[in-house]
């Protein structure tokens, strides 16, 4: 009952300051914006026509009046009943030059490709499995025609097929962002939401919740709370959990909202988004524990916000720094070298003076690794959790047997999760423990 009373009080406070409305409004706006995105399936004909059109536009700008004109004609879907990614296609690719004089010049410039060159060019289209390019007859000396036929498709389902995102229920087509559906959903979920959105959410929640404890500790207010039959430690822990619950519910709204609207629009259900709710709340617990400690020590929300924000920046820096330095360890450098080079440990040897000695790579001084290891070990492994959210989100979108997935698994698998989680939990416990100890022993 006491916990719910405190939680309800924290919500009342957040609602009263209007920040809660702002955050909730922002979350709903983001969900609505993403919900308004339509993914229009782009037909194969459109794709080839668009490629020709892009070429016309670029060359038209570069060589006004002299540029060849590319066109797709007589496009046929060879099995009309099948899905676009299950069909074979045939069409005629036409290159027309403005006059006879420019034919040779265009050929020299590679603007009139040969059948082989066209085979190579169209073969680069991601979903094209096989392609046949044959020169076709033409009556005009300034015209070149190629009969092209695609056979089979690398795209096994809708997700690998090209789609065009359109904002506001199709009102604003984002033609330049055409691409594989799963890549588009990945961009929205992993980058827009998982990275950028999560950062904003973390910052906003830090600001909002930073007022909860200092307000409770204000002179005249704290006496009223402390006179109630509740242990100080329990009170502070409940307040802490109240802050976490605030973040959790906010994350639930935005993540489940995005999961739902994106799933309905794209038919790709990124279930990892839902799993990330818990991880984001855990990440927030790191900053909120520090914010709580500073709030108890100083009773100042500003100090609490600043400290939590600085810690956030520091942890990101430590995470990136650790990975960068870790990649420069002698054994890792040696393993990565395409040809054998000797890695020099600068603490033992200052390089070779022998001109015939094999090429050398200098590793960093040993104290750098030790320092980075110690800093990384004692601080919460925030970046590891970041990697985990990336994996959870991307796992639902990338090919489970592909190289991308393999690299992702390898990266996340290389993290020592026992160390990562225990250090992070210990950090939170120490911060919260210090805050509780100070709160429990302080005279108010």
């Amino acid at each position, binding site marked *: 009952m006491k916990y719910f009373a405190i939680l309800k009080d924290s919500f009342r406070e957040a609602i009263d300051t209007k920040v809660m409305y702002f955050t909730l409004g922002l979350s709903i706006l983001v969900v609505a914006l993403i919900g308004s995105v339509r993914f229009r399936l782009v037909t194969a004909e459109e794709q080839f026509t668009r490629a020709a059109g892009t070429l016309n536009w670029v060359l038209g700008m570069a060589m006004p009046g002299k540029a060849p004109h590319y066109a797709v004609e007589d496009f046929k879907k060879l099995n009309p009943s099948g899905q676009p990614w299950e069909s074979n296609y045939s069409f005629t690719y036409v290159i027309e030059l403005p006059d006879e004089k420019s034919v040779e010049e265009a050929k020299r410039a590679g603007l009139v490709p040969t059948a082989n060159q066209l085979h190579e060019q169209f073969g680069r289209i991601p979903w094209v499995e096989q392609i046949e390019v044959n020169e076709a007859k033409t009556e005009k000396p300034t015209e070149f025609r190629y009969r092209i036929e695609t056979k089979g498709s690398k795209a096994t389902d809708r997700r690998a097929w090209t789609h065009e995102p359109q904002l506001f229920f199709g009102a604003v087509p984002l033609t330049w962002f055409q691409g594989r559906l799963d890549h588009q959903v990945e961009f929205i979920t992993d980058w827009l939401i998982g990275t950028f959105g999560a950062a904003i959410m973390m910052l906003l929640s830090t600001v909002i919740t930073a007022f909860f404890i200092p307000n409770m500790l204000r002179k005249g207010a704290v*006496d009223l709370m402390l006179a109630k039959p509740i242990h100080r430690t329990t009170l502070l822990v409940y307040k802490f959990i109240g802050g976490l619950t605030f973040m959790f519910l906010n994350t639930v709204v935005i993540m489940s909202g995005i999961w739902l609207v994106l799933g309905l629009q794209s038919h790709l259900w990124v279930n990892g988004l839902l799993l990330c709710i818990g991880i984001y709340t855990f990440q927030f617990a790191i900053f909120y524990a520090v914010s709580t400690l500073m709030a108890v020590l100083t009773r100042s929300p500003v100090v609490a916000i600043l400290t939590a924000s600085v810690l956030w920046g520091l942890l990101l820096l430590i995470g990136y720094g650790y990975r960068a330095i870790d990649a420069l360890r002698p054994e890792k450098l040696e393993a990565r070298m395409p040809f054998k080079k000797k890695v020099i440990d600068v603490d033992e040897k200052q390089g070779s003076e022998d001109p015939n000695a094999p090429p050398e790579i200098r590793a960093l001084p040993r104290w750098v690794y030790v320092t980075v290891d110690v800093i990384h070990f004692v601080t919460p492994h925030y970046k590891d959790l970041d990697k985990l959210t990336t994996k959870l989100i991307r796992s639902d979108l990338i090919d489970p047997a592909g190289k991308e997935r393999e690299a992702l698994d390898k990266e996340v698998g290389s993290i020592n999760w026992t160390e990562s989680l225990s250090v992070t939990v210990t950090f939170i416990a120490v911060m919260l423990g210090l805050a509780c100890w100070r709160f429990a022993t302080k005279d108010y």
Partner: protein
Amino acid sequence: MSVIATRDLAKQYRKIQALRGVSINVDPGHIYGLLGQNGAGKTTLIKILLGITNLTSGDAELLGQPAGTANVRRRIGYLPEDHRFPDYHSGWSLLDFYGGLLSVPRGERHRRAEEMLELVGLKGRMHYKIRTYSKGMKQRLGIAQAIFHDPQVVFLDEPTDGVDPVGRREIRAIMQQLKDQGKTIFLNSHLLSEVELICDHVGILQRGELIREGDIKELTELQGFFVLGLAPGQTLPRDDLARQGYTATPSGEHWEIGVKDGQNIDPVIDLLRARGLSVRHLVEKRQTLEELFIETVEEAEPGVDRPMPRKRK
């Protein structure tokens, strides 16, 4: 058994000795008034009893248990001085919140909240935000939250601060009602006239030291002085009284009669009647609490409440 008991209670805030060996006992059902100048240690004493501040040495007990434990706090109510309620609450939601912290069941919370707010005259504004309340209204709300859970002991630190005379009277009535219900009230106040009207016992704190304590009637009683009034136009036979060993000094329309040890006032009445004079007024003279307070503080530390002389540069 005392409801509130402290023994040699001391509190040291770094270089400041806030309390020095304070020993008090408050019996059940009594209203105890603690008087003292600003910074005398009154609030510190309450905070120690409630566990808001830790004691440095000595003992403090509330309801027979060590002061400040959560179990004890369940049975006490508290209105702090200069309290600041979270202003995002309404009067009703504040009581609901505090009731939740006191583990009062939901239904009872709602019922009690309305009752209490009606008792302190805030029912009509109970769903308004506290930030719209006047100081007096906040003070009434403070009283309501202090007695919300039907506590056995109520600590009130300056309860009538900022309250208009009508409101003060209402608060006094509530305190009297609580006393009638057998509750014990511990009152800190600067308003000595208020304390005099309501308290049974008082203690005077001076620089952290309890310099006087006792029953309010006994403390304010002046041994050997009576105020006497005769019918209009009659003259007091001062010389005759002086011959019998009584002193008589005019005090407005009345006379102040001094009675020596071992004497009583009856011979004076007999003498006046024998002279055919009519006694219209006769009371034993008392000090006001304010007079007692000033006198006690002055005796303990002469000149302590006067402004410090300015230092010359």
